């Protein structure tokens, strides 16, 4: 009995977890939209990311999941929150400066996504992935990262360099510039 039930549970364990994380993702995403205050949006985004990490785990990409939590949810979102605090952004007021976005954009987006859904379903009908389908242990990842993808990896350094410089230039107090202005 128990064994049977356990096996059923095991059988559907994957599905259940997927649905659970998925629900969080969806909820978080929707919440991000409906929340008026940026902080709330940020928090819900963090939730989404965390849940995504879960999904990654289900797919077996444990390293990715870890990095997702550490870098993404951790570092990047902290940056966001920090900025929100810095500029102490309040409730966003509902100006409607753009009909185009609502009248053209949203319908367009909807049709697009419907189409894509259809495409995706048509593309992979039955095939399914087992739990932990493709384990991505760090050493394998490293093999790829430092051999096959060596060049992109190196190039990202340039990217980061630019980002830093840009941040410095743009965020540095304009007084520095203003001093030169006059």
């Amino acid at each position, binding site marked *: 009995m128990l064994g049977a039930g356990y096996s059923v549970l095991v059988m559907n364990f994957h599905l259940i977890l997927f649905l659970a994380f998925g629900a969080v993702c969806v909820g978080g995403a929707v919440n991000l939209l409906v929340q008026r205050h940026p902080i709330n949006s940020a928090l819900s985004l963090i939730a989404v990311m965390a849940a995504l990490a879960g999904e990654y785990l289900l797919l077996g990409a444990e390293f990715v999941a870890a990095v997702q939590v550490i870098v993404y949810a951790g570092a990047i979102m902290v940056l966001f929150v920090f900025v929100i605090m810095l500029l102490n952004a309040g409730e966003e007021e509902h100006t409607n400066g*753009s009909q185009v976005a609502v009248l053209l*954009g949203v319908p*367009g987006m909807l049709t*697009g996504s419907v*189409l*894509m859904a259809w495409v995706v379903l048509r593309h992979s009908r039955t095939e399914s992935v087992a739990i932990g389908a493709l384990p991505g242990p760090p050493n394998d990842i490293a093999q790829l990262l430092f051999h096959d993808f060596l060049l992109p990896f190196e190039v990202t350094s340039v990217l980061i360099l630019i980002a830093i410089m840009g941040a410095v230039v743009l965020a540095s107090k304009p007084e520095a510039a203003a001093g030169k202005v006059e």
Partner: protein
Amino acid sequence: MTANLNLWLFPLLPLAGAAINGVLGKKSSRRAVTTIALFFSGAAFIWAVKVWLAVMFTRDPRWAGVLDLPHTEFFAHWIRITGFSADFAFYLDQLSLVMLLVVTGVGFLIHIYSVGYMWDDPSYSRFFSYLNLFMFFMLTLVLANNYLLMFIGWEGVGLASYLLIGFWFTKDSAASAGKKAFIVNRIGDFGFLIALFLLIKHFGSLDFEQVFQGVSPLASETGEAGLLTAISILLMVGACGKSAQIPLYVWLPDAMEGPTPVSALIHAATMVTAGVYMVARSHVIFERAPTALMVVAIIGTLTAFFAATIGIAQTDIKKVLAYSTISQLGYMFMACGVGAFSAGIFHLMTHAFFKGLLFLGAGSVIHAVGGEQDMRKMGGLKSYIPWTFLTMSIATLAIAGIPPLAGFWSKDEILWKAYQVSPVYWGIGVVTAFITSFYMFRLLYMTFFGDYRGAQVDAHRHGSDGHDSHGHGEPHESPMVMLVPLMILAVLSLVGGFVGWGNHFERFLAPVFGAGEVTAEAASRVTEWLLMIVSVTVAALGWWLAYLLYYQRPDLPQKIANSLGSFYQTLVHKYYVDEIYAAVFVKPLVDGSTRILWQGVDRKIIDAAVNDSADGARHASDEVRQMQSGNIRSYAGWIAAGSAVVIAFMIWMAVGR
């Protein structure tokens, strides 16, 4: 060839004169100008006489082959393209020889006369260069061996008359008259050109010889329409313009704005007869187009009568002569119309004598009374200017057709030929003869008899006429230089007719017009005499009537005029033809072009369309700019929508195949 007649000298001599006077004249003295002008025109005349003598009397074997007319001399290529060519080549036959003598002779005389008449004019040299230029074109016209070269002269004389009519251009009337003359002539030339195109199209050439060779085998056309008929009528249109026939005669009376010698030379003796010459020249074509001949005859007859009637009521001495010229030209066309080309040319010659004389006389009169042209302000001049009076009366007798003066012979010839074709022509011709003699003697009496009605001539009456120095006190006789030509012409008007005695003239021209008409059938001698008597009596009647009205009872005319009332007014106003033309053609054309074409089509339709499309583009541009609301979300909206479209399209394409 061993020897030739150097026909090219005829046009080029006067041209040289014109060029020299035109370029250097302003600076050089009057005397020099005179010498140049007279030398070159005189030289042409002398050469003409020499040629004539050579043709008539030389029996020198060296000249054999040269002198058997017609005689063509090639001078230079002009237009040569595949399938068509026209050269500077000259054509001499009896017809052109006659014209040659008339033109150079009368022309030379009038040159002499002008020396006196224009002496005081500030632009003396300009006048003579124009006059020589006219001679050049006229001689080209006469001597051309193809229609195109003839057309050069044709338009050229038009130009010369344009320049000379408008000689005193500060007078607006003169300027307009010149323009009118040129444009009306252009209308005629339009017909001429079309005729030329027809000739080219069907005979591939414009050389007289080739054209006539092409024509002669063709049968005489009976039907209304037909190639030759068309050509002839179109040529006639040209002639109407040049020779002032209905409906294109309107320019000639206005042309009297020009200096009187010009009226004498161009608008009486030579240029206006070019039409007759051209018709006669193309007789080969006309003879094969009876319909056209009829048209010519009718036009001629009507014009003769119509113009004569107008002549009655004119008071401007030159206007009277102008209308009489038109009417006389009508006679000539009547002659051509009835196939009596030689008679036409005969009348052309005599007319050149007496009408030239009349104009020169009138000029002398005007000169005497200091520029006055209104006969009502003249009268009793015969005592002041006896010579002028004498010569002018001779001319009057001549034109009136009093035997044995020149006019009698030629006019009688015409009437006789006309009678042979149809008495109607003859009838109208006779009536016209009556009217002619009436108004001519009217002129004579009004001018020379009675007592002087004009005011004392003050120095500056004929300001525009440019002689201002003399005109002291009473009317005065003209200087010798003007009288001599008068006398010579008077002599010619006296005896000029006798060349027609016994059809000499006709025989002379026979090689041109064919011998057919020379044989005057003896049977109808009687009728000929009868008709002659009739016409003479008619002329006499006219004289008598004029005598009655304008010598004995000078008060009558006014009464008659009043009684006639509106009809008389109509005559005075020349049947209102000018007004009608203005109302029917000129005004609608100008207004239509201004309102409908320029303001309407050009501005309101085409240009408006262009500018509107430009504005349309600008509006569209404004619309496009509205995409750029400046709002990021809108932009994102565009991108999202666009991407949706792209995705949809790509998927559709993928599924589609």
